[in-house]
């Protein structure tokens, strides 16, 4: 596209969403050329240290720790642009109302328990920061195991971008532990060494390293994480506040504000917060160049239209398909909103023989990657297991333990002695399974238009597939065996899949797959570059494009794909058309 033609638009690129995908895309584009970029964000919070300090102080009020929304509850944007704050609740009994007030449900087999935040900086404010890569077979699941889908790109297509993403996000990790993991080669070491093992990790590793669970040999490795193990990119090393979710108080953990703050130095890049995009529409030439938004934080809440030759939607995997469906775009395949996935997760808790002193350091430093691959994947999901450093995680905070003791009328000197004895030995293993992309699990546009801006809510239909259930059961059995190997006493070992078929599960809040990537325009929404099959100038970034969920946390992979998408956008802006 010629420069003159581009200048006839308000911007060169409009990006919807300022989370990791949107912020990283804007930053990287701005380094390719001095593009005029507009980022539109529904949330309306600051991105500086003052805002971080304010969020930090709000955490005093969160009661039982670990609520990903706790620091953000007093933002005005919470009422204007609601998010799914109670999503983790299970499906209520027939006739009872759903806890969640944002997700709408009709005839759903289960609730969709993954939440996200609508903030400047997106959900990265509240993420844990774990950044493992996908495995090569994760991109060709159908070809290898006959289930799920294949991506139009392979691990090798992404490897360079993985390296770049690790540098952009600032990932700490130990190259030698992970290079070649199930064929996942690494062409370059991590930008910094892995996090120091916790005291508990060291004790646990000593007891289980090299031992067998069935045919699988346990190897405890340091999880790659976007958390500084040394000063990096102008941010400090982790100080171990034990609070990665819901907020790193010092910014040692990457969040998208890192790139948004860098962009403040770019005069041609604008970030407009408090702007809810309500519609994308075509121009006279049939190209999706118009972005309609409502500026809710201005008097009269004006409706505004801006234009650009390239539109990139990076509003996470619920808002992105909702916007496309509201706009009646990109859906000739009828796949927009379908294939909604999460990592179905469960935890098993135990008491170690001796004090291991959790709640000191990052919430989790190590993982067992050994269960992520195998021929079993043709039958049931693999799983990825993490070792917690936060007591029993969701199952038991110090407050909950104290409450339990008070319930037994334990007062006086015994109270703190017993609390300390229990809390200091708490350990959890968590495992995340892989969901298959199923068309019936989907996001639609609800007929209810009852939020403050009179916009429709997402209507969700969701159920956990048999494939994931198989992984949950395998993860549960493996966890029990591992606790036996370390001679720990099981605390709560509720089977995720009960004999009567009822299911216990948690969300990993990894929302994926609603604008799925594929080669065939008839059964996918975007191509391997994130470009909509139906509209060559409309791109999607974020985990909504994932064709499979794999077992790794999605952020690094979505960042790598975003970097690849950005390169294509740059090429298209320079040369027109696509490769």
């Amino acid at each position, binding site marked *: 596209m010629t420069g003159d033609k581009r200048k006839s638009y308000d911007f060169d690129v409009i990006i919807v969403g300022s989370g990791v995908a949107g912020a990283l895309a804007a930053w990287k584009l701005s380094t390719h050329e001095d593009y005029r970029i507009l980022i539109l964000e529904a949330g309306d919070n600051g991105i500086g240290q003052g805002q971080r300090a304010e969020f*930090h102080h709000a*955490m*005093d*009020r*969160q*009661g*039982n*720790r670990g609520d990903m929304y706790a620091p953000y509850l007093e933002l005005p944007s919470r009422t204007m642009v609601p998010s799914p704050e109670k999503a983790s609740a299970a499906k209520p009994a027939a006739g009872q109302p759903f806890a969640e007030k944002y997700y709408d449900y009709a005839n759903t087999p289960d609730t969709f328990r993954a939440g996200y935040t609508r903030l400047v900086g997106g959900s990265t404010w509240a993420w844990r920061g774990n950044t493992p890569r996908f495995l090569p077979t994760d991109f060709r699941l159908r070809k290898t195991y006959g289930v799920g889908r294949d991506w139009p790109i392979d691990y090798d297509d992404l490897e360079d971008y993985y390296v770049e993403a690790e540098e952009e996000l600032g990932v700490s990790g130990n190259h030698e532990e992970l290079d070649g993991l199930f064929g996942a080669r690494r062409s370059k070491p991590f930008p910094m060494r892995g996090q*120091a*093992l*916790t*005291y508990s990790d*060291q004790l646990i590793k000593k007891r289980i390293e090299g031992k067998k669970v069935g045919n699988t040999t346990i190897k405890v490795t340091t999880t790659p994480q976007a958390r500084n*193990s*040394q000063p990096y990119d102008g941010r400090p*090393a*982790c*100080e*171990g*506040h*034990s*609070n990665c979710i819901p*907020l790193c*108080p010092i910014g040692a953990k990457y969040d998208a504000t890192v790139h948004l703050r860098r962009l403040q130095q770019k005069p041609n890049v604008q970030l407009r917060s408090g702007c809810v995009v309500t519609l994308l529409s075509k121009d006279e030439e049939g190209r999706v160049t118009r972005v309609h938004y409502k500026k809710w934080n201005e008097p009269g809440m004006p409706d505004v239209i801006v234009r650009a030759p390239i539109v990139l939607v990076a509003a996470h995997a619920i808002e992105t398909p909702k916007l496309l469906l509201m706009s009646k775009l990109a859906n000739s395949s009828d796949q927009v909103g379908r294939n909604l996935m999460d990592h179905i997760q469960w935890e098993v808790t135990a008491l170690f023989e001796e*004090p291991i*002193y*959790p*709640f*000191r*350091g*990052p919430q989790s430093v190590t993982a067992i990657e050994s269960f992520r691959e195998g021929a079993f994947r043709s039958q049931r999901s693999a799983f990825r297991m993490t070792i917690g*450093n936060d007591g029993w995680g969701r199952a038991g905070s*110090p*407050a909950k333990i*104290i*409450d339990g003791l*008070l319930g037994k*009328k334990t*007062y*006086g*000197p*015994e*109270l*703190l*002695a017993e*609390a*300390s004895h229990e*809390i*200091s030995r708490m350990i959890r293993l968590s495992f995340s399974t892989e969901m298959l992309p199923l068309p019936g699990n989907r996001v639609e546009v609800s007929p209810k238009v009852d939020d403050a801006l009179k916009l429709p809510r997402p209507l969700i239909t969701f159920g956990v597939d048999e494939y994931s259930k198989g992984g949950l059961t395998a993860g549960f059995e493996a966890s029990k065996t591992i606790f036996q190997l370390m001679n720990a006493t099981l605390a709560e070992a509720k089977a995720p899949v009960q004999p009567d078929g009822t299911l216990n599960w948690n969300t990993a809040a990894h929302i994926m797959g609603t604008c799925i990537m594929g080669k065939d325009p008839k059964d996918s929404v975007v191509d391997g570059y994130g470009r909509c099959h139906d509209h060559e100038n409309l791109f999607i970034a974020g985990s909504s494009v994932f064709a499979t969920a794999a077992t790794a946390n999605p952020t690094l992979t979505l960042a790598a794909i975003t970097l690849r998408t950005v390169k294509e956008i740059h090429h298209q802006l320079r040369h027109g058309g696509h490769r």
Partner: protein
Amino acid sequence: MDEFLALSSLLTGLASLKKVDPLSAENRMARDYLRLMKEQFGPGFDALLAIYRVAATRPDPLSALTQDPGFTGEVDTAARQIVNMWLLSQYGGTGKLPDQDAGFYEKGFVWPAIRAHAIGFSHLSYGYWSSKP
């Protein structure tokens, strides 16, 4: 105030609360916690104090207090609130009243007992977590 501190010490097992320096943080905490108890849990707190006054004269005041037939319902709730304030600087969580910050979260007595810092408030440097505390 002295009576509140003595009751707090009995319930929590924290001997240091028996005698508190008037210029200390603990004194400010006690003042605020006492006010919150009166404001938020008045009837249960009054009843708890009444039972405590009798129990304090017994050879084993803690058993006398917690095994008193009246140590139930609102009284039990009031006792739990006092403990939660001192250990976690938190009150509420009763259904009617969601969890509330009592103002001194970082100074909760549970953290030194488990050899940790208040979650979210480390004052230590990178890697401290590798060593036994």
